[in-house]
């Protein structure tokens, strides 16, 4: 079976600063893959390069089609939802408008209304705050809103940029439980970028370690979790 997402020799740079130096990785359909690494390793850049937010070079295949030259808007339309670094909340709009925007490329109004209820089912707090300005939500609530907004696309693949960042451990646990449900029950594939290796490895089935724009190790998440040497030298715990 060909993987859902296949990346070969991915290069990217900000202006003249080269950040990615030829990344190779793949993600199976309905799988959870995590990219681990410290600050500045190039994890966020990888996600940005995947969905065309920055200049990139290399081969990117999604669901059998090359997306290396596609625009961000078109990649979204193929079913790739990006939960960005910093959550990307539309702070001046209401919570419900934020969620509706997640489905802005869809035309099936009735299914959209059903999906809105489904998201509220996952995150009841968002329903309570539906008409509130989204900028007034707490960090955890904004992260839920970002994931809810991504779900409104009915994505095949969700890119998650450090969803645990800045959240209390209990909230992180709650959030990752929901991500696991999304993956298992709804079959959404997840590409998860994390500094918090513990939670990421619990959720993922496959992991890559990224260092200064290169993949330095890859393997089953289970193996990495149990490999003390790698944990010590790359993940710092």
């Amino acid at each position, binding site marked *: 079976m060909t993987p859902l997402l296949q990346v070969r020799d991915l290069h990217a740079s900000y202006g003249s600063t080269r950040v990615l130096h030829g990344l190779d990785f793949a993600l199976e359909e309905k799988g959870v893959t995590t990219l681990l690494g410290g600050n500045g390793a190039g994890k966020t850049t990888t996600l940005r390069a995947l969905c065309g937010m920055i200049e990139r070079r290399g081969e990117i295949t999604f669901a059998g089609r090359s997306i290396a030259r596609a625009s961000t*808007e078109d990649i*979204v339309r193929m079913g790739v939802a990006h939960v960005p670094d910093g959550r*990307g909340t*539309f*702070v001046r*709009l209401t919570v419900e*408008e934020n969620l509706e925007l997640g489905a802005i*490329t869809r035309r099936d109004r009735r299914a959209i209304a059903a999906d809105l209820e489904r998201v509220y089912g996952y995150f009841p707090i968002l329903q309570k705050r539906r008409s509130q300005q989204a900028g007034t939500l707490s*960090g955890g609530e904004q992260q839920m809103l970002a994931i809810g907004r991504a779900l409104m696309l009915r994505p095949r693949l969700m890119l998650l940029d450090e969803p645990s960042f800045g959240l209390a451990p209990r909230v992180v646990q709650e959030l990752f439980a929901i991500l696991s449900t999304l993956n298992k029950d709804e079959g959404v594939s997840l590409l998860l970028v994390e500094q918090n290796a513990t939670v990421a490895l619990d959720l993922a089935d496959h992991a890559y370690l990224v260092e200064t724009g290169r993949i330095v190790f890859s393997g089953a998440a289970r193996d990495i979790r149990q490999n003390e040497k790698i944990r010590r030298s790359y993940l710092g715990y």
Partner: protein
Amino acid sequence: MELLLQQILAGIATGTIYACIALAIVMTYQTIGHLNFAQGEMAMFSTFLAWQLIQWGLPYWTAFALTVALSFAGGVLIERIVLRPIHNAPVLSHVAVFIGLLAILNSLAGFIWDFNVKPFPTPFGTAPLIANGFIDAHQAGMIAVTILLLAFLYGFFRFTRVGLAMRASANDPVSARLVGIRVGWMAALGWGMAAAIGAVAGMMIAPIVFLEPNMMLGVLLYGFAGAVLGGLGSPAGAVIGGLIVGVVENLAGTFIPVVGGELKFTIALAIIVAVLVMKPQGLFGRPVLHRV
């Protein structure tokens, strides 16, 4: 007392036009982050278009609708052809382009239709609205048209998906692209709508200031004052700001002897300077709520 009431009503009537121009300015400001100095000349050009259509024998409201549609298309084209290529360029490039547009439209209108002052028809008539009424039919018509326009815009932005997409693009262009919105086209749409709003304002004010290539100079200045007063980040604020400027202008011209008709322009500039010094975000452009 009667004079005061009459002046306030007349101020609101002209204020609606400033409100429209202020709104057009705020709309383009929200999509591209720059003040469009050519907004007034675009409205002037639209008004000449309407005049030409009426000269060719079209009924007023047909010409009106056609002008709004053509202006919308013209606004979209200007964004696509002139502004799209420079959307990442620094402020000064934009300023240069706007001044260029202003000069081009101004002299083009003069070249096609000459610089002689022309009367422009009103569909409402100039009789007093009611016997001994404070305002005439045209002023009342201006107010009514503006109310309709604002109601339409409110409905569009509040209840349609395109309206939501445009608000999202103005709020956060990067996130808007991440949900699949074609942000560039939303900017073009914003320009089209601003041009259409300006066209309505031009056609409404032309019977009062008369039609000529420089007719919108003063109006634009008052529109800017209204936009700055209400807050450049707030469309509703721009409308209220425009109305306030209209009333203040009229009252000052009537009741402060020194000001009279001669110094009315100065009021707009005084408002701009005073607001920028004392409350730079404007009356309604409150800072965005943010919890960290």
